[in-house]
C-alpha cells in the first residue's frame, strides 16, 4: 500500500475512534455528560491518540530500519568472488539497487510480468535484454550475482512494505479498540489526553534538539579527520591562509586567524552601522512616533529583513562599492584599491541588520511598563530624559541580547561577503582593503571538485565548527543576559 494511503488510513481510523469514543462516552453516562469525569470529546481524543500515535511512530521506525536491514541481508548474499578487484562492495550494492529499481519500473510500465521479474530461475541475459528494451538499464552487463541480489532486494522490499502496512494498520486498530474499551464515566480521559499532548510537544522539541546534535556530530567527525591530516596548532595559530589548489599538494597553509580577523572586522563595521541606527529607530518608533506613523514605518523597516542576502550582495557590488570608490578610491582619497572591501561589506551588512536590532529592541522597549514612564514624567522629566534614564536602563539587558543575536547573524553571513568583501584572506587594519571571512572560505573550499579526503576540503568542517562554537557562545551569552533581565522585573 503506498505510504500516502497508509497514513490516510491511520488518520481515518483515528477519526473513527474519535467519533465512536465520544458517542460511547455519552452512552455510558446515559446521555448526561455531567456524569462523566471529562468532557465527551476527551474520550474521543483518547481513542484517536491511542490509534494514531503508536501506529505512526511504528511507521517512522519501520521506514528508517527497513532499508538498513534489507541492504545488509542482500549485501551478505553477494559472494566475495563477485566483487571485482577494481570495485568495492558499496559500488556493487549501488548497482544492485539500480537493477532492482529498473525491474520495479519495468513491471510498473507493464513491460514485464511480476512473475518474470521475480523468477529466480530466469535467465540473466534474458532479463537484462528485456530491461534494456524497456530502457531501464544503461550499464552494459549485469552479472548473475547482481541480478539475483537485485531480485532478492526487490522481493524483500515488497514483503517488508506489505508487512509494514499490515503491522501499522493492526496497531492503529488495536490502539483504537483499547481507547474505546477504556471509556467509562470514571475514566480520567482529560488527564490522559493532557499527558498525550505533553508527550507530543516533547517529541517536537526533541526533534529540534536531535537535529542540532546530528549536525554537530557530522561536523565533529570531519573536524577530527581534518586535524589528523593537519596539525590543530597550525590551524588555530597560523597567520597565513593559502590552500594549494592541486589538492594533495601538501603545501597548504591553513591558518584560521586571517579568516577570523576578517569575520570579526566586517561584523564590527556592520554592528557599528546597525546598532545606533537600529536602536534610534526603535526608540523613535516606540516612544515618539504617533500611531499612524508607527503602523506604516514598522512594517516598512521589517521589509528590509525579508530581502534575500544575495540581493544585498548585489547592492554592495554594484552600488555601495563604486560609491565608496568615488570617495576613497584613487580618484578621491586614494585609500581604496577596489570596490570590494571590508567597508563595503560591513556597511551593507549593517543595513541588513538594522531591522533585527530595531524590531527586537522595539519589542523590548515596549515591554517596559508604562507606569515607569509615568513615574518619570510625574517628576517633571522630559521625554528624552525619561528614555535615557529610565526606559533604556530598564531595557538595556534585552537590547544587549538583541545586539548579540544580530552579531551572530553578522558572523554567519556569507553572500554579502562573497560579493562585497572579496576573496583575499588578509590580516590588515585598513577597512578599505579586501578581506574575507570564515563562511566565504567554507564555500570556496567546498565548491568545485572537492576531494573529501584532502585537508583542503576537510578544513571547511573545522571552519564550520569554529564558527559554530563562536556563535553558540554568543547565543548563550545573549540568553544569559536576557534571563538576568527577566529576574530584574519579577
Amino acid at each position: 500500500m503506498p505510504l500516502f494511503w497508509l497514513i490516510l488510513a491511520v488518520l481515518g481510523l483515528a477519526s473513527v475512534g474519535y467519533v465512536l469514543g465520544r458517542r460511547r462516552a455519552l452512552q455510558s453516562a446515559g446521555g448526561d455528560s455531567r456524569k462523566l469525569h471529562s468532557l465527551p470529546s476527551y474520550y474521543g481524543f483518547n481513542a484517536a491518540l491511542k490509534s494514531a500515535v503508536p501506529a505512526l511512530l511504528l511507521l517512522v521506525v519501520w521506514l528508517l530500519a527497513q532499508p538498513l536491514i534489507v541492504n545488509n541481508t542482500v549485501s551478505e548474499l553477494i559472494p566475495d568472488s563477485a566483487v571485482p578487484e577494481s570495485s568495492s562492495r558499496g559500488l556493487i550494492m549501488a548497482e544492485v539497487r539500480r537493477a532492482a529499481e529498473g525491474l520495479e519500473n519495468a513491471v510498473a510500465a507493464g513491460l514485464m510480468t511480476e512473475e518474470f521479474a521475480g523468477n529466480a530461475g530466469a535467465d540473466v541475459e534474458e532479463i537484462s535484454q528485456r530491461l534494456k528494451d524497456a530502457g531501464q538499464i544503461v550499464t552494459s552487463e549485469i552479472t548473475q550475482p547482481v541480478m539475483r541480489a537485485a531480485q532478492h532486494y526487490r522481493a524483500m522490499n515488497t514483503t517488508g512494505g506489505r508487512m509494514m502496512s499490515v503491522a501499522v494498520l493492526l496497531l492503529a486498530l488495536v490502539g483504537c479498540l483499547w481507547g474505546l474499551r477504556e471509556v467509562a464515566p470514571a475514566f480520567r480521559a482529560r488527564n490522559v489526553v493532557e499527558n498525550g499532548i505533553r508527550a507530543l510537544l516533547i517529541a517536537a522539541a526533541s526533534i529540534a534538539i536531535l537535529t542540532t546534535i546530528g549536525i554537530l556530530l557530522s561536523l565533529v567527525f570531519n573536524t577530527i579527520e581534518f586535524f589528523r591530516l593537519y596539525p590543530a596548532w597550525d590551524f588555530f595559530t597560523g597567520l597565513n591562509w593559502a590552500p594549494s589548489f592541486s589538492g594533495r599538494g601538501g603545501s597548504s597553509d591553513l591558518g584560521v586567524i586571517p579568516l577570523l580577523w576578517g569575520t570579526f572586522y566586517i561584523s564590527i563595521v556592520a554592528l557599528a552601522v546597525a546598532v545606533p541606527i537600529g536602536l534610534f529607530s526603535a526608540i523613535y518608533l516606540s516612544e515618539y512616533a504617533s500611531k499612524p506613523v508607527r503602523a506604516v514605518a514598522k512594517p516598512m523597516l521589517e521589509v528590509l529583513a525579508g530581502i534575500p542576502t544575495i540581493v544585498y550582495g548585489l547592492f554592495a557590488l554594484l552600488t555601495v562599492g563604486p560609491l565608496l570608490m568615488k570617495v576613497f578610491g584613487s580618484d578621491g582619497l586614494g585609500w581604496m584599491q577596489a570596490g570590494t572591501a571590508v567597508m563595503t561589506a560591513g556597511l551593507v551588512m549593517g543595513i541588513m541588520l538594522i531591522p533585527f536590532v530595531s524590531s527586537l529592541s522595539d519589542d523590548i522597549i515596549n515591554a517596559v511598563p508604562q507606569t515607569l514612564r509615568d513615574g518619570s514624567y510625574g517628576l517633571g522629566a522630559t521625554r528624552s530624559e525619561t528614555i535615557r534614564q529610565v526606559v533604556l536602563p530598564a531595557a538595556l539587558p534585552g537590547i544587549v541580547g538583541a545586539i548579540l543575536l544580530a552579531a551572530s547573524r553578522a558572523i554567519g553571513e556569507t553572500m554579502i561577503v562573497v560579493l562585497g568583501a572579496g576573496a583575499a584572506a588578509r590580516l590588515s587594519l585598513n577597512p578599505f582593503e579586501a578581506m574575507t571571512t570564515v563562511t566565504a572560505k567554507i564555500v570556496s573550499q567546498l565548491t568545485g571538485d572537492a576531494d573529501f579526503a584532502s585537508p583542503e576540503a576537510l578544513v571547511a568542517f573545522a571552519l564550520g565548527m569554529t564558527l559554530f562554537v563562536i556563535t553558540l557562545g554568543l547565543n548563550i551569552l545573549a540568553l544569559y543576559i536576557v534571563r538576568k533581565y527577566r529576574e530584574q522585573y519579577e
Partner: protein
Amino acid sequence: MYDTTSEKDVDQKTIKFSARKVQVFYGDTHAIKDVDVDIEDKTVTAFIGPSGCGKSTFLRCLNRMNDTIDICRIEGDIRLDGEDIYDRRVDPVQLRAKVGMVFQKPNPFPKSIYDNVAYGPRIHGLARSKADLDQIVERALRRGALWDEVKDRLHAPGTGLSGGQQQRLCIARAVATEPEVLLMDEPCSALDPIATAQVEELIAELRRDYSVVIVTHSMQQAARVSQKTAFFHLGNLVEFGETGNIFTNPEDKRTESYITGRIG
C-alpha cells in the same frame, strides 16, 4: 484632628487650582462631567468616591499626566495660580515639576533606592554637591517614613523593597523635588497602620508649605487628614466643602449613603 483653628485658616487661604467645567473623555467614555472645584493653598483636599468614579482621572488632569494617554481628551478650564495649565505656552514638564504626583500603584524605577529618590533633584539640578544631594535624599526618605528601614542599603535596588516600602519610596521620590502641590493617589492603600500614621503625619507637615490633594477610600483617613473633601460619583462632583460638614452634615443624598456605607 480636625479643629476649628484650621477652619479659620481655610477662609483666608489663596486658591491654588481652580477648575471650571472640566470634561474628560477616554475615546467615547465620558469619565469626568462638568467638574468645578477650587483647591486651596496650604490645605489638604481629599477626593472620595466609589471605584471607577473618576478620582484618579481628575487628579491626573491637574498635572497633565493624561497627556500620555492617546485617547484621553480634556475640555474646560484648569488654572494653577491663575494661569491656564492647558494653554499652549505652558510646558507640561515644568508643570509636573511644580505639581508632584504619587501614583496609585507603586512604580519605583529599576535603580537603587538612592537613585530613585535622587532622580528628580538631579534632573532639576536641585543639589549643588554630592553632600547636598545626600542630604536631600535623606530628608526625603525621612519624610517618606522609610529612612530607618533603608539607611543601610541605599544602594540596593528599589524594586527589591516590599509593596508598602515601595509606596513610601515613591512618596519620598515625589517630595524630594519640593513640589508646590502634591497629588497623592491612594498613597496608603498598601501600608500598615504604623506607616499610614507616618504618611498622614507627613501630609500634615507638608500642609504647612504646600497644597496636598489625596485620593482615599478610607473615610476615616479623609476625616483625619483633610480640611476639604470632594465627593465624586459616576464622573460628577456631587459635593465639595469643609470636611467636617461633608461627614457630619452632607447635603446630597448620594454623599450620605456613600459615607455611611450604602453605595460604593
